[in-house]
């Protein structure tokens, strides 16, 4: 198999693009996809500092690597979930990455903010572990960004993540979730920062290949709580479809973004309030994070 650009031996085939690339041309292809995402959705400018949420995994570290190399001003944010050895190792990967590149990394622990780490939250609530974890992450990303005066948070969500989320929303017709699925969510309240996903044009196999070729030391082991997660099942289904019909995931997600999402966006009219407890933004009186923290405190104390 030969590189589409230079004719040298290829290291990666991208069937959905009907192409294969050598390592240097793949790295350039990858960076160009990130640049296009940032440009198309006006995600951020070089005049602002981007808070990059990093987990120690391939996606977030690949994203941070691209942004640093492209000259963006960034700060990493690692949220310590307290998930045993997995969190210890993933935090070490982020610290090593930041130190090697001389970029700042902020660490915030879920234990300090919620009152307990994710494994305890999982036990004391009836939520699936990924639910409480995701809620805490979204809340803390916004909180840390506001505290540090940053107006935008970038996450490493890729094409597969976004297609799987869309698949899950459509399977249950969560029409309230559909307008919020976007590569770039604007700030709709002074206390809500922008959230952007510069990797949404790239599959997770592509981000893994980028991280490998860039010799990024990322955590390969999966979060112990992800086993059996619905999103994994959805990804497996979509990957089988992709195998049978290259481009299926891309067409599903991009078709939604280009043609279907605007219709759902018009239907949504949310009133945003400030949480009576913590002051962060919520659609109710008390935000979901404070309710979660209350539940944890009650159960842990009792």
């Amino acid at each position, binding site marked *: 198999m030969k590189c589409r650009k230079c004719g040298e031996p290829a290291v990666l*085939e991208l069937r959905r693009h009907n192409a294969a690339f050598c390592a240097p041309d793949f790295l350039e292809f990858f960076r160009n996809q990130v640049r296009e995402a940032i440009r198309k959705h006006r995600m951020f400018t070089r005049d602002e500092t981007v808070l990059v949420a990093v987990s120690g995994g391939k996606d977030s570290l690949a994203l941070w690597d691209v942004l640093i190399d492209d000259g963006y001003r960034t700060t990493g944010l690692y949220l310590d979930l307290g998930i045993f050895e997995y969190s210890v190792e993933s935090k070490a990967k982020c610290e090593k990455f930041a130190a090697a590149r001389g970029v700042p990394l902020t660490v915030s622990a879920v234990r300090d903010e919620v009152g307990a780490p994710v494994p305890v939250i999982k036990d004391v609530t009836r939520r699936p572990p990924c639910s409480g974890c995701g809620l805490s992450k979204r809340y803390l990303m916004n909180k840390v960004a506001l505290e540090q005066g940053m107006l935008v948070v970038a996450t490493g969500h890729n094409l597969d993540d976004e297609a799987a989320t869309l698949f899950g929303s459509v399977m249950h017709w969560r029409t309230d979730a559909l307008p919020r699925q976007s590569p770039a969510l604007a700030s709709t309240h002074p206390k809500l920062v922008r959230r952007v996903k510069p990797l949404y044009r790239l599959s997770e196999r592509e981000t893994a290949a980028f991280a490998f070729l860039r010799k990024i030391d990322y955590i390969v082991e*999966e979060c112990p709580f992800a086993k059996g997660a619905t999103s994994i099942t959805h990804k497996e289904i979509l990957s089988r479809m992709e195998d049978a019909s290259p481009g299926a995931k891309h067409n599903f997600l991009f078709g939604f973004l280009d043609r279907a999402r605007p219709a759902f966006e018009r239907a949504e009219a949310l009133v945003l309030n400030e949480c009576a407890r913590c002051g962060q933004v919520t659609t109710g009186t008390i935000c979901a994070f404070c309710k979660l923290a209350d539940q944890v405190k009650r159960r842990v104390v009792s």
Partner: protein
Amino acid sequence: MKVILRNPRREVDVAGNRRVKEILRELDIIPETVLVICGDDLVTADQVVREGDTIELRPVMSGGGASSR
């Protein structure tokens, strides 16, 4: 030839001198879900792996409700 699999990490022996795509098919692994690594290199599905080689099939799928990935 030796194949290293992850999550959990384990090794299996399969017949070599075959293309990567044939090995993936035998192991019932969807090509889209793994990187195929031989030494310090990525290898494509059409490449032949020799009997004495070791390849790693590194999963690329991450999941759960992670918001930072």
